[in-house]
């Protein structure tokens, strides 16, 4: 029924099957939307947040999706600025994943704030000294850039592309994509950093506070770095999952391998920096405020020293060493383990920098504050996942997300169509907009 919308040369599941899938995920989405509306209309009392846990699950989810969404900016940077051509086959998907991550982040922020209708005050009455202002500005600008990067892909839909204006628009946007990508990289660098700055500048919270250069605490750089390092892992992870689900090879190994290799070196350098940072913080910064390292990791039910081991050793050094070695990269299981660990690692880091910061008592007579999210928080956190799955499914079905798909998964052409399709195969992949 919707065959006119499906890209040429690829095979998609029947519409009913597709709709069934969308429907199933849609139910989860609606559950999240219901929770979101509860939060908007009844207020944040729907959550289990409190005056100690002013930042909680959502802000973690926000930071986490932005961190893993960092794959878009970093892949874009490699592709458009550093000219890594191999990545042209994964850049579309990286952009799509980034788009999903950033739109989700903005949605979560819109639920998280106490007064969503006044949310625009952050722009209008901006306080330039606040890391959060920087986050908001760069986040929304970069979301704009991602939209611009994603839009040409939408315009490439068979039917939309027929409209000359849209066709030309998509084409022209491709033409100057490098400029957008550069701006995006600039914006992304800053907001990833400012997200790190959000915690790092809290000089009233010795657990979070870091020294740094000028106005930027070390966490500023560590966050950017870790997003650039682990974001591509998430892109690979989602790509691999998509391949599993569609039972097709969608991206050529050379693209994945290149990305994995770069990611591996990034993770390694990042985790060394993180180790140094942790060491300095544990031996200099925290003691100067009267804290020993172990005070941050004891006397409570959840936050033990295991968290530091897990974040740095297990989810840092291990994936780094797997990905920088050729043997590791060539081993499919190794890659799976590495990218999953890297993604967990960066998410764990964000968790620590949001939730543990809130949990650690600062006043000597205060207590550890532990918190568990309410179902509304969980539902609204799953909401973006469902939304992402749906958007990926729709994009995959109707847009030429994977330029190599047709080539790598040739379909048995129907006799009458064969003539029409065959000749266009070769030029199509050559002329895919991603290349332009």
């Amino acid at each position, binding site marked *: 029924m919707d065959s006119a919308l499906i890209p040429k040369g690829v095979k998609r599941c029947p519409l009913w099957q597709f709709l069934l899938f969308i429907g199933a995920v849609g139910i989860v989405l609606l559950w999240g939307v219901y929770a979101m509306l509860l939060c908007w209309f009844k207020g944040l009392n729907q959550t289990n947040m409190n005056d100690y846990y002013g930042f909680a699950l959502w802000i973690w989810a926000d930071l986490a999706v932005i961190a893993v969404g960092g794959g878009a900016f970093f892949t874009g940077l490699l592709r458009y600025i550093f000219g890594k051509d191999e990545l042209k086959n994964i850049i579309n998907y990286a952009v799509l994943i980034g788009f999903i991550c950033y739109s989700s982040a903005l949605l979560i922020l819109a639920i998280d704030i106490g007064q969503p209708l006044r949310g625009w005050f952050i722009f209008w009455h901006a306080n330039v000294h*606040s890391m959060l202002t920087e986050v908001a500005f760069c986040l929304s600008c970069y979301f704009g850039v991602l939209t611009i990067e994603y839009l040409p892909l939408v315009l490439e839909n068979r039917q939309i592309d027929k409209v000359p204006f849209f066709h030309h628009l998509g084409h022209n946007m491709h033409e100057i994509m490098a400029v957008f990508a550069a701006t995006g990289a600039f914006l992304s660098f800053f907001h990833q950093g400012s997200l790190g700055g959000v915690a790092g500048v809290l000089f009233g919270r010795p657990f979070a506070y870091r020294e740094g250069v000028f106005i930027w605490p070390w966490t500023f750089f560590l966050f950017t770095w870790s997003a650039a390092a682990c974001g591509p892992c998430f892109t690979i992870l989602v790509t691999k999952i998509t391949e599993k689900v569609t039972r097709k090879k969608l991206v050529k190994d050379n693209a994945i391998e290149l990305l994995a290799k770069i990611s591996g070196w990034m993770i390694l350098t990042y985790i060394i920096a993180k180790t140094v940072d942790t060491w300095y913080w544990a031996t200099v910064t925290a003691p100067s405020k009267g804290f020993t390292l172990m005070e941050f990791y004891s006397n409570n039910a959840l936050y033990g020293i295991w968290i530091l081991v897990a974040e740095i050793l297990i989810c840092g050094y291990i994936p780094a060493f797997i990905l920088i070695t050729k043997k590791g990269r060539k081993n499919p299981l190794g890659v799976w383990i590495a990218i999953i660990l890297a993604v967990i690692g960066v998410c764990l880091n964000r968790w620590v920098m949001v939730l543990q910061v809130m949990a650690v008592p600062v006043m000597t007579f205060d207590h550890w504050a532990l918190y568990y999210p309410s179902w509304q928080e969980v539902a609204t956190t799953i909401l973006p996942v469902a939304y992402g799955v749906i958007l990926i499914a729709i994009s995959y079905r109707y847009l030429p997300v994977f330029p190599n798909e047709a080539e790598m998964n040739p379909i048995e052409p129907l006799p009458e169509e064969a003539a029409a399709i065959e000749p266009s195969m070769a030029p199509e992949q050559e002329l895919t907009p991603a290349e332009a």
Partner: protein
Amino acid sequence: MKNNLNHRFGMVIDLDKCTGCGSCMVACMAENNVPFRKDESDKLLSITWMRVFRLNNGKPFPETDICYLPRPCMQCAGLHEGHSPCVSVCPATATDYGMETGIVSQIYTRCFGCRYCMASCPYHSRYFNWWDPIWPDGMEKYLSPNVSPRMRGVVEKCSFCYHRYQLAKDKAFMDGGRELKENEYQTACTQACPANAITFGDLNNPDHAVHRMVKPDLEHGGRPQNPHAFRLLERLGTNPKVYYLSSRKWIRHAGDNYLKNEAKMKKPVHHG
């Protein structure tokens, strides 16, 4: 550092006198239209601009000792004037530091509830309105017009009863704009304290009791020169304007975090 404040309103709370009765909390609630709910036993959800903490010395029976510590907003000045932990982080400039008074002020109607300031405050002096403020039918009659009730979804905090400063100044304008006298501007908690444990005034003014009581070293971030005086979390560099007095060492020690060996080292130097 040079101190360019006109005033530096601050508070000195004598913990030897404080009985932990909680009158300051109620005086504050009554003065500032603080709402309440049917269950206020979750203290992490309960708005108390002034909150009385309970400290104990951790010793077993019968050496155990407890002390109460009232905690308003510390009105931190930070290492350089105005760099309080919460002010610079507010993305919408909804909170600010007044150089005229040294008070951290806030526009509740500007705040959009991101709660970043709460995350930044080590004293937990900032409170979020998780619920709509609802007064039982008829009870809204006692609300004071001098403080606007806050709506759901915004952060609020102790203001050192700034409206009382405004009202006192209004009166002074009628007398030709004269300077305020010490007793003309007092916070509600100071006024109510049955034990006279709270003293409020201008730390910059040597004639004011607060200045005489703690002798703040304004050249060095306001550190108290009275050996019995201390501030909460002094070493974070928040430079609070609320000082505490106690003759008991363990209480003064509880005001800040110390490394184990450090406490021993510091003993002869401090609290002479």
